[in-house]
């Protein structure tokens, strides 16, 4: 029913002044805020605001595997549980986890696993819980980015961070960091993540239409944007430690 009032997509996704509807340039990111250590009982945690997205991530592990038969004798396992709050989207989501949530959980897991040394933790599991409490396009990228922070906060050895972003095409133009409306009304969507230890791609999806030249350009603009995200991740991890140095044991919220 709510569909009736909101899901009227604008005819154009650019304003008269050539900027995007939210005032951004083609290659401009939405405002981002990162914070680590927000969930007291977790082994590591982080919080990310990215435009209107609000996402929590918590890491538990290495710990015993439940159920036991999932354990692997020669390595640890990584399990990611991506969930959206019922109220995080326009039409209330049903409370039980849906297919989409399971699919994104798998994608995020595939994207984080390369940065871990799971072979050092035989028989155990790492569990990452991700809760999207407000969603506005790009939640899989936001989730990947915040989960990497939570892993780092947990002090788990990592080859590097991983950063993710969605680039795409709206009204025929290539842009970075699609907003929710740009994602729905746009022409193409390419979420991508880079693991910094080898500068390779660990998440890649695409829906839309592109030729080979367009693909090359997408990969170029994504890489620029991902470098910015990576810097922010590094700063947020550092500033937390700074904070901790200033007032040992205190945690911000």
């Amino acid at each position, binding site marked *: 029913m709510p569909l*009736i009032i909101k899901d009227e997509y604008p005819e154009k996704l650019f304003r008269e002044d050539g900027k995007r509807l939210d005032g951004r340039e083609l290659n401009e990111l939405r405002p981002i805020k990162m914070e680590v250590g927000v969930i007291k009982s977790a082994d590591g945690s982080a919080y990310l605001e990215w435009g*209107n997205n609000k996402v929590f991530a918590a890491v538990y592990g290495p710990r015993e595997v439940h159920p036991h038969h999932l354990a692997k004798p020669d390595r640890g396992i990584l399990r990611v549980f991506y969930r959206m709050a*019922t*109220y995080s989207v326009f039409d*209330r989501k049903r*409370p039980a986890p849906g297919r989409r949530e399971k699919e994104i959980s798998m994608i995020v897991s595939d994207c984080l696993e390369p940065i871990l040394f799971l072979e050092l933790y035989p028989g155990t599991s790492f*569990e990452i*819980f991700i809760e999207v409490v407000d*969603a506005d396009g790009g939640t899989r990228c936001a989730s990947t980015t915040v989960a990497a922070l939570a892993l780092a906060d947990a002090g788990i050895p990592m080859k590097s961070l991983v950063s993710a972003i969605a680039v795409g095409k709206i009204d025929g133009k290539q842009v970075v960091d699609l907003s929710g409306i740009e994602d729905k009304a746009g022409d193409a969507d390419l979420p991508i993540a880079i693991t910094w230890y080898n500068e390779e791609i660990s998440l890649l999806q695409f829906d839309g239409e592109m030729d080979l030249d367009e693909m090359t350009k997408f990969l170029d603009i994504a890489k620029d944007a991902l470098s910015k995200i990576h810097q922010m991740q590094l700063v947020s991890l550092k500033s937390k430690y700074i904070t901790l140095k200033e007032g040992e044991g205190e945690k911000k919220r």
Partner: protein
Amino acid sequence: MMNVKRIVSRIEKNYILSNLRKEERIDGRGLWEYRKFSIESDTIASAEGSADVTLGDTRIITGLKYDIGTPFPDLPNEGVCTVMAELLPLASPLFERGPPDEQSIELARVVDRGIRHADCIQTQKLCIKEKEAVYILFLDMYVINHDGNLIDTGGVSAITTLLSAHLPEGIIGDNGLEWTGKYLTGDDLVNELPLVLTYGKIDDIIFLDPNLPEELVCEGKISISVTEKKITSIQKSGATTFSIDDIKMLGKKSLEISQKLRKELNLLQYKTSIK
């Protein structure tokens, strides 16, 4: 970091208990003292009302969504509000994945009854057209951090969310449902501001607002919802018993403490009044 899943030892229980006997809490509070509440409202852009409430380190983010449905035949001009709670495994190693367990059902139910029986929501304002169309509200609570006393945190979170509500106003025109462009807000909907107060019991000691270590050694709890002058809901839980005199004393305490808390929280400041 505290491993909350450990079996709480008898020693620890005795430590908590011996402090309580001296009317002291492990976090320094008195028996009838709340931890600090902090409240932010309307933080979720996708929700039609929301609140981010912490009590000590316990944190619940609640959001309001709605649907339009037909009313119950026996209440043809009243809308409906349902309350759901999820104890996210993100928040605590004590919470497990899967369908709602007893603890989340209890949280939702006690908060729901606290609202329902205090006439908190003017359900007739949720009627769009008698017998035909009413708002169905979904008040969904997500526990983000767990440090004990989810119920009182949830109670404040639910009321604040309702106060911050902004529902698009609908009317039934010739072509069915139409939106006026105005909003129904917390200003229109909320009637009473019930609070729910939860007490723990260990041995024969009773105390307000148990934190997580206390909750883990509690033998039982009791939650009492009150409006300004009346008790509107009670829920005893846990495998313990309370004397009749205890119950009478707690009824009195609840009315006193809630009056003070009500002033401190000043919940009306979270009312949305955009029209």
